[in-house]
């Protein structure tokens, strides 16, 4: 007991403790409560963000009538990653919000990464320890099914066990809210999962048209990039920003459907063979032509160096052979249904004449500073001042010519400063997640417009299925009934979003969502009934008791 007090004291100081001691604490929490004894206080780990604080304020109130008490611990995102993801030390439950990165648009990510038993490992995202043979079978089947209608069917089926087994409370999909100055620029393109301002989908910027003599746009966002080397970083913001210069082979159009980008077209020859056709007449920013030699070089180079940031490419592509003036045949290692979306949409065309002539003495080409990036994308490199801005100039040689002369993206760590800059006219677009309160304030300015776009990103509460009482299905179903998703979305985000069906795919993604499933209806009576059916009972003080033996 004393040791625990010391640990709590240290934790309060922000001091971390050796892993063994943490295990001791978790071991105590994981100990099986005796049958018929009160359900222990449930440990919750949540990030410190305001939306999460509000979420738990609501949930602890909404769940109290069930006789449940929560012990809520807050931590920064890096603590969450270190403890819950890397070390797989989730207390009874934890909350997280997942951003709508473009590679998560394919349903495989939110299915396989978060719930497949294969990902119940250190560093995996199945940190609630969900294991279901039926789910695994369906998840594997959809991943290997390249026929789209058949895959659709499998994706719809695989969501059913998630709703039935309830390994997580998937709550809602909060809208992306961006804002811009409509007196200065027109032609914004809101794209599902990207909004008007994120760099994830470069088509969002292609329609932007200046209305004043200044022909470049100033965009604010939270993050800065870490490096100009596209082989280095796997982090989503950095990698997509660099891909504005380094065109990926395919991208997403205004409807978020796949479209060729550096390519002219692609065709699936058989499930393990894909032919890609380079867009004829493509040029790199230094004026040299982009050819099939560069395409082959790119895949060979990635396979040779096995860059951690591009492991999904080297894991998927076995070889690349030139088969025509513009055609390259890719042989895949395994059948991977999201190949076009997640590999061709992530890999970019690299100029052979630059990357095969790097200075010697580098441990890996990923360590090269690449101070003057040369790609073939719609934007050319201008200048990067760390912590201040990154500037791009339009590439008139790209097959879709930007209507702007350039873009300046400025990292601003504070939302209030970003809003102020937009209001004062110091910036033209605010490309970070606004909330509705700030959005309403911005809307009051005649020149500014707020744009809401749905996304596949999501807020969830993950339950630790290895820890009682969360190992009990009746208990999990009761929590589902006691959780009013619509009310939570209304309170936390003023209703700006899509309520979840309890499955990992948003209903707004009609291509993959299963219209026939529904999260358990919010009703405290049904929650109590579910607990009673599961053998739980209550003591005189209304405290929930474990099922009797």
């Amino acid at each position, binding site marked *: 007991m004393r040791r625990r007090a010391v640990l709590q004291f240290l934790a309060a100081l922000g001091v*971390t403790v050796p*892993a063994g001691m943490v295990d001791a604490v978790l071991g105590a929490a994981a100990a099986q409560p005796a049958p018929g004894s009160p359900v222990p206080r449930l440990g919750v780990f949540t990030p410190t963000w305001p939306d999460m604080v509000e979420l738990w304020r609501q949930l602890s109130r909404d769940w109290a009538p069930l006789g449940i008490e929560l012990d809520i611990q807050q931590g*920064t*995102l*890096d*603590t969450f*990653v*270190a*403890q819950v*993801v*890397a*070390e797989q030390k989730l207390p009874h439950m934890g909350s997280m919000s*997942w951003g709508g990165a473009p590679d998560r648009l394919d349903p495989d990510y939110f299915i396989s*990464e978060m719930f497949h038993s294969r990902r119940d*490992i*250190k*560093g995996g*995202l199945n940190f609630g320890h969900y294991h279901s043979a039926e789910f695994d079978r369906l998840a594997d089947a959809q991943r290997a099914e390249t026929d789209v209608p058949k895959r659709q069917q499998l994706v719809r089926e695989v969501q059913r066990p998630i709703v039935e087994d309830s390994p997580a409370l998937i709550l809602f999909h909060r809208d992306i809210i961006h804002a811009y100055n409509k007196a200065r620029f027109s032609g914004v393109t809101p794209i599902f999962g990207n909004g008007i301002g994120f760099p994830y989908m470069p088509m969002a910027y292609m329609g932007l048209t200046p209305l004043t003599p200044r022909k*470049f746009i*100033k965009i604010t966002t939270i993050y800065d990039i*870490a*490096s100009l*080397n596209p082989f*280095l*970083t*796997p*982090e989503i913001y950095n990698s997509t920003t660099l891909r504005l210069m380094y065109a990926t082979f395919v991208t997403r159009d205004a409807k978020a459907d796949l479209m060729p980008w550096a390519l002219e077209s692609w065709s699936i020859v058989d499930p393990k063979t894909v032919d890609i056709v380079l867009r004829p007449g493509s040029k790199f920013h230094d004026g040299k032509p982009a050819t099939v030699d560069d395409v082959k070089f790119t895949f060979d180079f990635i396979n040779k160096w*096995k860059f*951690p940031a591009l*492991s999904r490419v080297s*894991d998927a592509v076995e070889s690349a052979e030139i088969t025509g003036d513009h055609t390259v045949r890719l042989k895949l290692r395994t059948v991977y249904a999201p190949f076009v979306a997640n590999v061709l949409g992530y890999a970019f065309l690299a100029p052979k004449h630059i990357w095969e002539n790097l200075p010697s003495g580098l*441990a*890996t080409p*990923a*360590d090269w*500073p690449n101070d003057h990036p040369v790609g073939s994308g719609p934007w050319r490199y201008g200048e990067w001042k*760390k*912590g*201040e*801005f990154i*500037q791009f100039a339009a590439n008139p040689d790209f097959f879709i010519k930007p209507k702007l002369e350039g873009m*300046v993206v*400025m990292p*601003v*760590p*504070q939302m*209030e*400063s970003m809003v*102020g*800059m937009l*209001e*004062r006219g*110091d910036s033209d677009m605010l490309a970070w997640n606004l909330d509705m309160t700030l959005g309403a304030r911005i809307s009051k300015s005649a020149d500014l417009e707020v744009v809401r776009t749905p996304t596949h990103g999501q807020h969830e509460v993950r339950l630790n299925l290895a820890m009682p009482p969360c190992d009990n299905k009746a208990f999990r179903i009761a929590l589902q009934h006691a959780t009013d998703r619509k009310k939570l979305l209304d309170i936390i985000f003023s209703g700006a979003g899509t309520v979840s069906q309890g499955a990992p795919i948003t209903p707004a993604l009609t291509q993959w969502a299963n219209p026939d499933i529904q999260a358990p209806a919010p009703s405290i009576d049904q929650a109590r009934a579910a607990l009673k059916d599961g053998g739980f009972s209550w003591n005189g003080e209304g405290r929930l008791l474990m099922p009797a033996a």
Partner: protein
Amino acid sequence: MAFWRYAGRRGLHTAVTLLLLVGFMFVLFRMIPGDPTTMMLGTGELPAEAQQRLRVLWGLDRPLWQQFIAYALNLLQGNLGMSFYFRRPVSEVIAPMLANTVLLMAPVVILAIVIGVAGGSWLGWRRGGRAEEIGAVLALIPRALPVFWTGIVLLALFAYQFRWFPIGGIREAFFFPENWWQRLPFFDITRHLVLPVATGVLASVADPLMIQRTALLEVRHEDFMVLARARGLSGRAQRRLARRNAILPVLTYSAIMVGFAFGGQVLLEVVFNWPGIGRLMVDSVTQRDYPVAQAAFLMMAAVVVFLNLLVDLAYGWLDPRIRGG
């Protein structure tokens, strides 16, 4: 001779302190749970095999003592290592941020000391009067307020309301001057400096001010001041004499101020979006970028340790009694 023996002893102490610091920093950041290869993503979804490749590349697969020896040997040659996160030499990562911080903090420290000494002397000379009571309270109020709060209030007034100054940043990306004064060199950087420097000075002026005031009160009753009065020195000459004799404690304190200024002011940097070393330090800890975190904290600690050494030596030089102790 006695002074040199004293200087040698103090120098040795400093070397030992620095060595302990190097070891402490090395262990400290590695004790934080999490590992740089998982932090790169924010969500830890890099495949295990890819993470292992990174660990080998960055030397994190070797035993801790081997890592430390490699680090210490590099450090002796002035090599701070490579940043995990930026994949550039640490010195290249730190230098521009340090320059930005010096640009911000140098005027803060200089103004705080100059205003502090002048104001403290003025208050001390008016001991017991209404002016002293009000002045001391006025100086202490901004010190008691959180830096970010003062900064936000100044921003709300002078940037949002009156629009005299920019909201933040170190310069405007692509600034186009509209008239002759905007064309003056440093115009853009100067107007970006005004609010953060004002905030920094408000927050830090009270310490030198109160120290100077107290020192002046002590000096006022020294024999030489009585003598000065007896000799019929003018009031202004007396104040000048007292001020100069009271300044030593403030100089000692300013060594500490300079040391901490090198660490930047994280809150000031965040509120004013100033790309300085303070934010870099916070980010490097969050990203588990050990080489950058170690170098930045070590630099800050080393500045404090060296300035302390200098002050000690200066005291030893000035006051022979200290050398013996």
